[in-house]
């Protein structure tokens, strides 16, 4: 499928670059519908890859790149079913999204995340599969999972460990704090900072530059410098599932979902 327009995302090829656009209100929360469409995208990649030299992932929504996993769906799906069935559902979801993330991570094209606004949790993890992150100056990153009794589950920790120093990873993970684009560039996460609203344009200019290179050479270079931490990724699923079964997580998710205050429930 050369182009596709779904409920949560769309893709097309523009000037030799695959552009994957996220457009699921409110802020591209990643639930089962988004996962299905990401799987559709992953399945379409082999033919798409033949006709392209780069991939850009971006959001068309003002609020940001992605607020991460759909916690409301995660909570609601677990209601009315026994614990074992809920856990099987979570594990299945994680295994499926890991398959998509791993496919994107290993894609033999140069991949760019053009991010702005909220880039949290699973959205941050989606950006982390890309080779290069170009961020609007108003982008904000966060792994809030520990604040709800969980760890990031879409491959975030192994990829952060791959890309950043361990002290930085501990800070981001163990405090659960959000941080701005200046900090993100300072720690080596963000490649280029764009003015407000300019991240996609700069990502396209970067993709255009990449298009001047021999495609096979670029793919070989990428494979050489970017190992995929498969064993740690599998381990992450196990740790997440182990933590998910505890009552404290359900309680945290309940408070988050039922909170009607101006600020989200995050301890």
């Amino acid at each position, binding site marked *: 499928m050369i182009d596709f327009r779904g409920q949560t995302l769309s893709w097309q090829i523009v000037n030799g670059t695959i552009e994957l656009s996220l457009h699921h209100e409110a802020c591209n929360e990643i639930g089962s519908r988004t996962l299905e469409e990401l799987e559709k995208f992953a399945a379409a990649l082999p033919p798409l890859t033949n006709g392209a030299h780069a991939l850009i992932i971006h959001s068309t929504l003002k609020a940001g790149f992605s*607020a991460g996993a759909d916690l409301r769906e995660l909570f609601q799906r677990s209601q009315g079913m026994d614990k074992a069935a809920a856990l099987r559902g979570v594990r299945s979801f994680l295994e499926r999204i890991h398959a998509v993330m791993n496919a994107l991570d290993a894609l033999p094209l140069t991949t760019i995340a053009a991010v702005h606004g909220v880039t949290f949790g699973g959205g941050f993890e989606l950006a982390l599969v890309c080779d290069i992150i170009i961020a609007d100056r*108003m982008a*904000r990153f966060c792994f809030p999972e520990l604040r709800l009794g969980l760890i990031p589950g879409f491959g975030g920790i192994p990829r952060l460990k791959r890309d950043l120093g361990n002290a930085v990873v501990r800070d981001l993970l163990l405090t659960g*704090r*959000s941080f*701005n684009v200046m900090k993100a560039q300072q720690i080596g996460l963000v490649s280029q900072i764009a003015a407000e609203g300019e991240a996609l344009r700069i990502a396209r200019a970067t993709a255009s530059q990449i298009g001047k290179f021999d495609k096979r050479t670029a793919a070989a270079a990428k494979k050489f410098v970017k190992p995929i931490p498969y064993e740690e990724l599998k381990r992450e699923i196990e740790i997440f599932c182990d933590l998910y079964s505890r009552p404290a997580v359900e309680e945290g998710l309940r408070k988050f979902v039922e909170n009607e205050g*101006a600020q989200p429930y995050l301890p």
Partner: protein
Amino acid sequence: MAAPTIDHTLDEILNLAASHFNVPREKLTPDADFFKTLGIDSLQVLDLLTRLEQHFRIELPDYELQGVSDFRTLANRIQARL
């Protein structure tokens, strides 16, 4: 260089908030609830936080804003990092 006074910090926050969210400056008072007076939600508060960090050249972890909804307390949190 000496840190600015808390009054100066508060004034800069109110000016920035009024300008960015298109609210008349005179409607913003130190003890006003910024969610209500600016008409913003939790995502827009992150936007405000990022602008304040850039303006004051500081890092302010979002957990320091948990439960904070008035400009004066916000100014105190920022002042502690100047």
